[in-house]
C-alpha cells in the first residue's frame, strides 16, 4: 500500500467519539421509533409478546450468570455459557411456528463465533463503542435500567426529534425487500354526504342514475349481526331499499320496465310528503333466455383463506351451478396467489369438471397475479357467440390487484369491455379489507351489480333467486330526472343515491353512463318534498327577489322523465309521466319507506326528527306483506338490533 493510502487510512481511523448526549438522544429516538412501529402492526405486537418472554428468559439467565460469575471469568467461559443458554432458549421456541427465525440456534452450531464476537471489542481499538456497551451489559440489570431511565430524561426535551420518530426518514436499501405494513383494517366505503335539501325555485330539476347494488345492506347486516352499528359511511340508503324484492306493477307493453309513482305522507314529518318512484323491470320468458357465458375471476390471495371467504365462495358457486342450463358455459380464472385459468370454458352440464376445479381452488401462494382481469376478459370474448350473454364475475375480499394498477385505467378498461358487450359483476366476501369504493366503481363501469356475500343465504339470494336479474340486463343507462313544480312544491330532497347523482345536462347525453336494470329487478327512489306553504319549509322566501306567482298546473307535484337504452342500443328512449299531488298508500311503498327511514337513522340524518327505530319497526311490520323469502322479517330483526345497539 502506498504512503498516500496509509496516510489517508490513519487519518480516517482517527474519528472522534460520538457526543454522549447526542448518542443518548439518538438511542432514545430509535427506541421510540421502534415502539411506534410495533403499535402500528398488531400482528407484530402479538409476536412481540412471545419474543419478550424469550428475552425475559435471556435476561434472567444473564442475571443469574452475573451473580455467579465475575467479569473475567465470564469472558473465558462465554463459549460454554452460550451453548448452555442456546439450549435453554431454543426449547421454548420448539413450539413456535417459526423455530428458525430466532437466530440463537446458530450459537449452538458455532460457539466459536460467539467467543470471537465477545473478544472483538477488545481487539478493535478504533471503535470504542463495543467496550462501553459491554460494560453496560456486564453491569447488573437494575443498574442498566437506571441508566436507561436517565437517558430518557435527557432526551425528552428533544421534541423535534421525537416528532421525527413517528415519520422515520426513509431511504432506500438495495437489499431491502418492500415491506408493506398491514394495517388491521383497510376497509373503505364509497359514500357522499346526504343529499341536501333543495329549494325548488332555485333547483327545480333533480337527476340521478338508478342503482341496483345491494352490497351496502349486506354490510349493514353483517355489522349489526356482529354486534355493532355500521359505520355511517357504509350505509347507502338506496342499496338498502333496493335490496328487497317488491311486487310493483309489471310492464305489459313494449317498455322493459314500468314506473309507478306513489305520493304519501311522511312518517317522520307530518308536514311533508314522500314521492316514491318505483321501476319494475320486466321478467322475460326464462325458458327462452339466451345461453350464458360466465367467467369467474377469483381472488386467491392469502387473505381469502377464511371460512367466510373462499369456502363460502365455493359453496355459493355450487348453488349457482344448479341454476345454470346445460348450454351455459363456465370458466374460472384466478388472480393474486395462484394465477391463471384453472378451468377452460366448460358447459354447465359437465358439473363434475366444474366442481372439481372449484374444489381445487386454494388461497395463498406467492405468485403475483398477472393480468388476471385481461385474461378473464380474453376468455370471455373467446366464449361469446352471437346472442349470448357474457359476464365476468369478480369475487374478492378487497384485493383488486387484478393486473391493472391505475384505478382510472382499470375503469376505462372495464368500460371499454362493457361497450363490446362483456359485463362485469363484483361479489365481495369477508370484512376487514373490503374495498367497497372500488367494488362500486368497477360494477358501475361494468354494467354490473356489486353484491356483498356474508352468508350462504345471501349467496342464494344473489346467485340463485335473482340469477336472472343479476345476469340478464333488460335496460341500460337508466336515468331518472324529476322536475318539481314550484307552484306546489317548495323544497325537496332525494333520500339516498348520493353516489349516483348526475348533472342535469347528463340526462339527455347518451354518452354518460348510468345504472342498469336486470330482468325482474325493482328499483325504488324516494323524495321527501315540502309542499308550497307547508310549515315544514326550512328556507324562508328571499326578501330581495320579486315574488312572482309561480305558474304551473296546480294538480301536479312535478314531472318524471326516465331514459334508458335497450341492451345493445346506443340511443336512449324516453318515458315521461306527471307526478300527482296524492295517491293511495301502498304497502310496498310503505315498506320501502320504513327501510329508507332505517337507513337515515343509521346515517344519523338530521331530517328524521324524533322518529325512532321503534317507529321504523312498527311501519315495517305493518307493511311486511307477503315476504316469501323472509327478507323483510330479517330487516325487522336488524332494526331491533340497531335499536338496542344505539341505546
Amino acid at each position, binding site marked *: 500500500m502506498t504512503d498516500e493510502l496509509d496516510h489517508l487510512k490513519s487519518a480516517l481511523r482517527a474519528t472522534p467519539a460520538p457526543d454522549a448526549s447526542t448518542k443518548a438522544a439518538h438511542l432514545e429516538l430509535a427506541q421510540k421509533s421502534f415502539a411506534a412501529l410495533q403499535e402500528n402492526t398488531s400482528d407484530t405486537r402479538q409476536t412481540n409478546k412471545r419474543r419478550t418472554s424469550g428475552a425475559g428468559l435471556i435476561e434472567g439467565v444473564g442475571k443469574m450468570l452475573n451473580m455467579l460469575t465475575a467479569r473475567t471469568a465470564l469472558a473465558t467461559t462465554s463459549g460454554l455459557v452460550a451453548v448452555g443458554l442456546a439450549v435453554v432458549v431454543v426449547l421454548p421456541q420448539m413450539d413456535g411456528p417459526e423455530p428458525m427465525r430466532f437466530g440463537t440456534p446458530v450459537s449452538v452450531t458455532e460457539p466459536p463465533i460467539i467467543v470471537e464476537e465477545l473478544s472483538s471489542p477488545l481487539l478493535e481499538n478504533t471503535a470504542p463503542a463495543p467496550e462501553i456497551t459491554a460494560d453496560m451489559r456486564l453491569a447488573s440489570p437494575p443498574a442498566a435500567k437506571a441508566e436507561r431511565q436517565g437517558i430518557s430524561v435527557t432526551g425528552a426535551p428533544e421534541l423535534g426529534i421525537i416528532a421525527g420518530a413517528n415519520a422515520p*426518514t426513509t431511504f432506500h436499501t438495495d437489499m431491502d425487500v418492500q415491506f408493506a405494513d398491514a394495517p388491521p383494517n383497510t376497509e373503505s366505503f364509497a359514500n357522499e354526504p346526504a343529499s341536501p335539501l333543495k329549494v325548488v325555485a332555485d333547483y327545480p330539476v333533480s337527476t340521478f342514475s338508478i342503482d341496483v347494488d345491494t352490497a351496502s345492506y349486506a354490510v349493514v347486516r353483517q355489522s349489526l349481526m356482529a354486534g355493532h352499528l355500521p359505520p355511517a359511511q357504509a350505509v347507502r340508503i338506496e342499496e338498502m331499499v333496493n335490496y328487497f324484492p317488491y311486487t310493483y306493477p309489471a310492464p305489459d307493453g313494449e317498455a322493459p320496465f314500468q314506473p309507478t309513482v306513489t305520493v304519501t305522507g311522511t312518517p317522520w314529518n307530518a308536514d311533508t310528503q314522500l314521492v316514491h318512484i318505483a321501476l319494475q323491470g320486466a321478467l322475460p320468458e326464462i325458458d327462452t333466455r339466451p345461453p350464458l357465458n360466465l367467467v369467474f375471476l377469483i381472488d386467491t390471495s392469502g387473505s381469502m383463506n377464511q371460512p367466510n371467504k373462499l369456502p363460502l365462495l365455493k359453496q355459493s358457486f355450487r348453488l349457482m351451478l344448479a341454476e345454470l342450463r346445460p348450454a351455459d358455459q363456465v370458466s374460472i380464472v384466478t388472480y393474486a396467489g395462484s394465477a391463471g385459468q384453472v378451468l377452460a370454458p366448460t358447459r354447465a352440464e359437465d358439473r363434475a369438471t366444474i366442481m372439481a376445479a372449484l374444489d381445487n381452488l386454494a388461497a395463498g401462494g406467492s405468485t403475483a397475479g398477472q393480468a388476471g382481469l385481461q385474461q378473464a376478459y380474453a376468455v370471455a370474448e373467446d366464449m361469446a357467440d352471437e346472442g349470448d350473454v357474457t359476464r365476468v364475475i369478480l369475487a374478492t375480499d378487497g384485493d383488486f390487484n387484478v393486473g391493472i394498477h391505475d384505478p382510472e385505467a382499470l375503469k376505462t378498461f372495464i368500460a371499454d369491455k362493457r361497450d363490446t358487450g362483456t359485463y362485469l359483476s363484483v361479489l365481495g366476501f369477508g370484512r376487514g379489507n373490503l374495498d367497497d369504493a372500488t367494488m362500486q366503481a368497477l360494477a358501475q363501469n361494468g354494467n354490473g351489480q356489486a353484491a356483498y356475500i356474508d352468508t350462504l343465504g345471501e349467496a342464494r339470494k344473489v346467485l340463485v333467486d335473482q340469477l336472472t336479474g343479476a345476469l340478464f340486463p333488460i335496460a341500460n343507462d337508466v336515468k331518472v330526472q324529476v322536475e318539481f313544480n314550484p307552484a306546489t312544491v317548495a323544497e325537496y330532497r332525494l333520500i339516498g343515491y348520493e353516489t349516483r347523482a348526475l348533472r342535469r345536462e347528463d340526462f339527455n347525453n347518451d354518452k354518460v353512463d348510468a345504472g342498469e336494470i336486470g330482468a325482474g329487478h325493482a328499483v325504488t327512489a324516494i323524495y321527501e318534498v315540502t309542499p308550497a306553504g307547508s310549515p315544514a319549509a326550512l328556507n324562508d322566501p328571499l326578501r330581495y327577489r320579486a315574488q312572482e306567482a309561480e305558474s304551473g298546473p296546480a294538480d301536479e307535484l312535478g314531472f318524471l322523465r326516465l331514459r334508458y337504452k335497450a341492451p345493445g342500443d346506443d340511443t336512449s328512449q324516453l318515458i315521461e309521466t306527471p307526478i300527482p299531488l296524492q295517491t293511495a298508500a301502498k304497502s310496498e311503498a310503505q315498506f320501502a319507506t320504513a327501510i329508507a327511514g332505517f337507513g337515515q337513522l343509521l346515517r344519523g340524518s338530521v331530517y328524521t326528527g324524533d322518529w325512532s327505530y321503534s317507529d321504523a319497526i312498527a311501519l315495517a311490520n305493518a307493511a311486511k306483506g307477503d315476504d316469501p323469502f323472509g327478507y323483510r322479517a330479517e330487516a325487522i330483526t336488524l332494526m331491533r338490533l340497531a335499536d338496542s345497539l344505539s341505546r
Partner: protein
Amino acid sequence: MRMSTSDEALALAAAQGDGGAFSTLLSRHYDRVFAFAFRLTGHRAEAEDLTQDICAALPAKLRSFQGTARFTTWLYRVTVNAAHDRRRRAATHARAAEGWGDWEVARQAEIADQSAANDWLAQAMQALPTDLRDTVALVLGEDLTQAQAAEVLGISEGTIAWRMSQVKKHLRALHQKEEQA
C-alpha cells in the same frame, strides 16, 4: 447475556418486535455507525444528522433484514444509502437556494468553506468524488476487504480495486499540488 447472541440473531428477533434485542443491537453498533458516518461525511454535525436518520428508520428497515448477509454488511449498506439520500436532499436544497439570489449562494459557499476545516483529511476527502469517498470509507476507514466493500456497495470486487487505484491517483495529484504550493 445478550452480548453472546450474534448480531444476525438479534436483528431477526428485533425485526419480530423484540425491543430488548433491538436495544442491545443498536447500543452494540451505534459507535460503529457514527464513526462510519463521520468517515463518509467528514463533518461531525453531518455525521450526527446521518446517524439520527438511521436511528429513526432502523426499526422499519430491520424488517427487511433477511439474515442472509452479515448484519454489519447490511448496516454499512443502510448507512451508505442514507448518506446518498442526504446528499441528494442537500443537492435539492442547494438548487432551491439558488432561487433566493446570488448572495445566498455566496453565503452557502462561505459556510461550506468554513466547515471544510483546513486539514489534510478534509482536503483529501473533498478531492474525491462521492463514490470513491464511500469506497475509501469502507476499505480504509472500516478496514473491510475489497470483497466485503463490494458486497456492501452492491458492485463487483473489480470495481472496488479500480476505484482504489483511482483514489491513489487523486491522492498523488493532491500530493503534487501540495509540493508545488
